[in-house]
């Protein structure tokens, strides 16, 4: 309920309760007073009539008695009256209705309420001489009707008072509700529009005024803090941007350097290789057996170094190349890679299973390198096994798809797993399994650039499982 209505309700309920209680008290007191007054009036009337009727009783004048009683006509509520002589016999009667009333036997002096009537006896004395008794019966209905009229007037007064209270409270509650409503309005603007520059208008020095002040101070504080936070954020962003720029610049320089180094290394290597081959082919007859062997070692080493440089160039190129994403069907994509790699493994018996892989949005050329790397690793490290079993599959997780390549090959000790994705890091000897140690570093770089993760699970002599995840949108 609105505070305005609550306030009015409080005022009106209080007024109503007070009015009701007051009028109830008045009604009760009026009723009691009214009955007392009625009793007193009837007693007075009885005394007057009794005093007037002494001579009539004393001198046996029924005409006079009737005349005196007939004066009761002036009192409309007196319905019956009777004079008894000193012996208790009916002396004179008075009645307003047509029905003949039954007059009671003489009772004790005094007045009593009987149903809707007030009845009573009054002794008739002349000085000390008892002359008879007067009986009076007063109809209270007419008087009760008057009481009802009073009640109606009182009810009207209550209604009018309540109406007045309503109008007054409607006007006066504003002194309390208006500042609160104004405050609430400002609070609404603040919370909805996030505008901390507005201020509530203070009305008066009461608690609401205090609240308004506190509210305004809070707004000021929020505003100041906001400004502080914003400027801090700006500074932070600026410094981050500066650092990023620095890093990018350094990175670019580094890559340009390594690229040019690698590139520049190839020319002399090509010379070494070319001249070594020329030596082997054109001057074989001049070389003895040992000379030929040395030449062979030079050629092999030059080749290996060439491969190393190629891989390094690939690796450094990967850092600069822009990702171009497109949606591909990973099932057919991986199948193509597997078929291609299986070409060179026809002598071996290899059982390779590819599960459902789904559709994903990636850079196909880069992801292809990852798959080639992982699958060829699986083939390479299972070469010494009789029955090779390779499994490729995927699981969909919230926010990403996880792919895995599992083999039952040589495996490795998980203690060295952290070294696996570094450049030139190798867990096996060159003589055991050939390789440059760049492949997994390159794969990690590609997955990083796709904002995915790559990790491994392995057990020595039992097999290795490589996992990588690609964010799902």
């Amino acid at each position, binding site marked *: 309920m609105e505070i305005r209505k609550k306030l009015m309700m409080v005022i009106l309920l209080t007024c109503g309760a007070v009015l009701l209680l007051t009028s109830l008290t008045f009604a009760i007191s009026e009723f009691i007073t009214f009955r007392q007054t009625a009793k007193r009036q009837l007693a007075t009337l009885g005394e007057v009539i009794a005093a*007037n009727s002494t*001579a009539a009783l004393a*001198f046996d004048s029924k005409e006079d008695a009737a005349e005196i009683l007939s004066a009761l006509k002036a009192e409309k509520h007196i319905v019956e009256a009777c004079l008894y002589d000193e012996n208790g016999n009916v002396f004179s009667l008075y009645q307003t209705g047509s029905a003949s009333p039954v007059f009671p036997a003489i009772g004790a002096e005094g007045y009593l309420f009987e149903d809707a009537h007030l009845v009573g006896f009054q002794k008739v004395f002349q000085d000390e001489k008892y002359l008879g008794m007067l009986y009076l019966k007063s109809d209270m209905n007419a008087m009760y009707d008057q009481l009802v009229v009073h009640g109606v007037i009182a009810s009207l007064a209550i209604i009018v008072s309540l109406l007045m209270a309503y109008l007054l409270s409607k006007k006066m509650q504003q002194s309390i509700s208006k500042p609160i409503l104004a405050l609430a309005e400002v609070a609404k603007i603040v919370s909805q529009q996030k505008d901390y520059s507005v201020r509530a208008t203070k009305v008066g020095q009461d608690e609401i005024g205090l609240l308004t002040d506190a509210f305004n101070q809070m707004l000021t504080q929020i505003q100041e803090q906001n400004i502080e936070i914003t400027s801090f954020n700006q500074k932070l962003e600026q410094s981050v941007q500066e650092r990023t720029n620095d890093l990018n610049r350094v990175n670019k320089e580094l890559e340009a350097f390594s690229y040019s180094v690698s590139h520049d290394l190839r020319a002399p290597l090509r010379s070494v290789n070319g001249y070594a081959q020329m030596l082997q082919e054109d001057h074989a007859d001049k070389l003895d057996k040992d000379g030929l062997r040395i030449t062979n070692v030079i050629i092999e080493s030059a080749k290996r170094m060439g491969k190393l440089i190629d891989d390094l160039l690939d690796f450094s190129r990967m850092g600069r190349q822009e990702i171009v994403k497109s949606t591909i069907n990973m099932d057919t994509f991986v199948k193509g890679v597997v078929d291609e790699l299986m070409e060179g493994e026809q002598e071996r018996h290899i059982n390779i299973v590819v599960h459902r892989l789904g559709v994903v949005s990636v850079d196909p050329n880069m992801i292809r390198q990852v798959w080639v790397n992982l699958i060829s690793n699986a083939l390479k490290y299972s070469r010494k096994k009789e029955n090779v079993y390779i499994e490729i599959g995927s699981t969909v997780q919230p926010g990403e798809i996880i792919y895995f390549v599992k083999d039952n090959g040589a495996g490795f000790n998980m203690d060295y797993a952290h070294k696996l994705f570094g450049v030139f890091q190798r867990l096996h000897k060159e003589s055991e399994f050939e390789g440059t140690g760049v492949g997994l570093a390159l794969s990690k770089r590609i997955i990083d650039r796709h904002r995915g993760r790559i990790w491994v699970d392995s057990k020595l002599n039992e097999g290795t499982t490589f996992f990588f995840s690609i964010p799902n949108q």
Partner: protein
Amino acid sequence: MPVLKHIAYIQLKSKVKFIVFVFVCSVLLSAQIQPSREYQIKAVFILNFAQFIEWPADAFSSAKAPLVIGILGKDPFGQFLQDAIQGEKSKGHPLQVKRFSQVSEVKQCHILFINQTKSDQELDVITSSDNQHVLTISDATDFIQQGGIVRFVTENNKIRFQINLNAARQNEITISSKLLRLAEIVNN
């Protein structure tokens, strides 16, 4: 009393005759003691007059002095009035009945019932000197003309009364308006 003397006389003559006579006499006596209904009412009225009339203070020798109701002439009320006043009081004054046979005997009276025709002169005598404040009552037809104050009148079998206000004022008697309302006011 002559009747009693007569009885005593007869007593000597014959016991039988005496018994018969006593019976007759007792009937006669009772007739005399129990007045007619008319006089019973009049007796009560006389008694009640005492309640509605105020005498000047000097009409009583003291606050406890009796209010004397006198009967001049033959007493028509007998024992009835005597019984009726028993224990009654009027403003503190006990009531007392006195009987007078002669006008000259009338003294110290507040209410005087006159059961015989009196001349104007005699009434003057009654109201003079000692009995200046007397309320005179009678059945006599020309009582008011003679200067009396209250005269009983029988109308349609009902007893009413006439009051001579002038005479009452002369005697300095104040009559309650309630009583006057019931009375026929006449003046001599």
